[in-house]
């Protein structure tokens, strides 16, 4: 906006230099991630309380989740986390082509995750293992199995919404990368997207054992 900053197209008028702007964005992003952790936190609390109240029901209900698909999705998500980290590394090295390639792989892996999730969901819906009052399945022993599936659908569903959001944001980043908007001088938006994507991965790292691997 102001004349003195025409040398740097990415610098907003109220920052004095690019470093200040980048560190501001990073702190803002970390605070946003903190709110995400506490948003999921409420569901983790619900999970903890109901699991300690009904350990047997949780164990019996978890047998109806497919460990193979869960493991597959964990590998998929961890890989996508790696590729997005490598995409940022490529931008740091100014290798825009490689960055675009790695971002594409990340998005494809995220889509694979959703497809697997779709098959898991549709199987459960078919069996009537639905949340709350729509639960009609009869095969789980124990108290109130619908609560397990309520929590399962809410936690994986909220996580799934975050995956969809991530796909949207990363696709936008991919488009801008292909257009050449980012370079080793300025790649803050991709870096922020990376942090977000790692958090989505991080939450799944906990969801996986808590739902699929109840011993």
């Amino acid at each position, binding site marked *: 906006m102001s004349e003195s900053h025409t040398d740097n197209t990415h610098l907003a008028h109220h*920052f*004095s*230099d*690019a*470093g*200040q702007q*980048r*560190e501001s964005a*990073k*702190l803002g992003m*970390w*605070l946003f*991630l*903190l709110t995400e*952790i*506490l948003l999921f*936190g*409420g569901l*983790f*609390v619900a999970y*903890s*309380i109901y699991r*300690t*109240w009904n350990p047997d029901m949780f164990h019996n209900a978890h047998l109806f989740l497919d*460990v193979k698909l869960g*493991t597959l999705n*964990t*590998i998929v998500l*961890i*890989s996508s*986390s*790696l590729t997005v*980290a*490598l995409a940022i*590394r490529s931008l*740091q*090295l100014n290798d825009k082509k490689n960055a675009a390639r790695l971002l594409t792989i990340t998005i494809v892996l995220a889509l694979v995750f959703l497809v697997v999730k779709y098959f898991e969901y549709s199987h459960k819906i078919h069996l009537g293992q639905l949340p709350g*009052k729509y*639960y009609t399945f009869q095969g789980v022993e124990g*108290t*109130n199995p*619908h609560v397990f599936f309520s929590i399962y659908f809410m936690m994986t569903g909220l996580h799934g919404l975050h995956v969809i959001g991530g796909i949207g944001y990363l696709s936008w980043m991919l488009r801008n990368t292909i257009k050449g908007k980012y370079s*080793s001088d300025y790649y803050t938006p991709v870096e922020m997207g*990376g*942090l977000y994507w*790692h*958090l989505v*991965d*991080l939450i799944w*790292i*906990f969801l*996986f*054992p*808590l739902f*699929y*691997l*109840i*011993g």
Partner: protein
Amino acid sequence: MSASKAEHANHVLPLRLYLAVGAVLIVLTFVTVAISFIHFGGWNLVVALLIASVKATLVALFFMHLKYDSKLYLIVFLGAILFLAIFIVFTMFDTMERDQIYQIEAKPIRENAAMYDDSSRGMHSVPHDSIQPDSSQ
């Protein structure tokens, strides 16, 4: 508070580090799945959470660069975990300890939700003599 540019020069980590961390994460995933098939009661949960925490730490330190960035971000991240832990633990001070004086206060009157009844979703009525509160103090 503006920091000099040099301080924020791109900190490029070696490719091998990323690949190594990714490999460890995948190995740990298989390990935790394998262990879940061995039963050692309550410890299953502890081990599963421990492995998940190691994986999360690796992601946070290397993929998210917490090891190399300003300590402020680490404080923010740990703060989130701390307050989530407070939320869980303090809630459990209630939900796990309701039977400290009377057993009867800890359990719901009817374990199962009304929708599991074949008869009706009507109100429950418990005959008086069927509830014998445990008055042991």
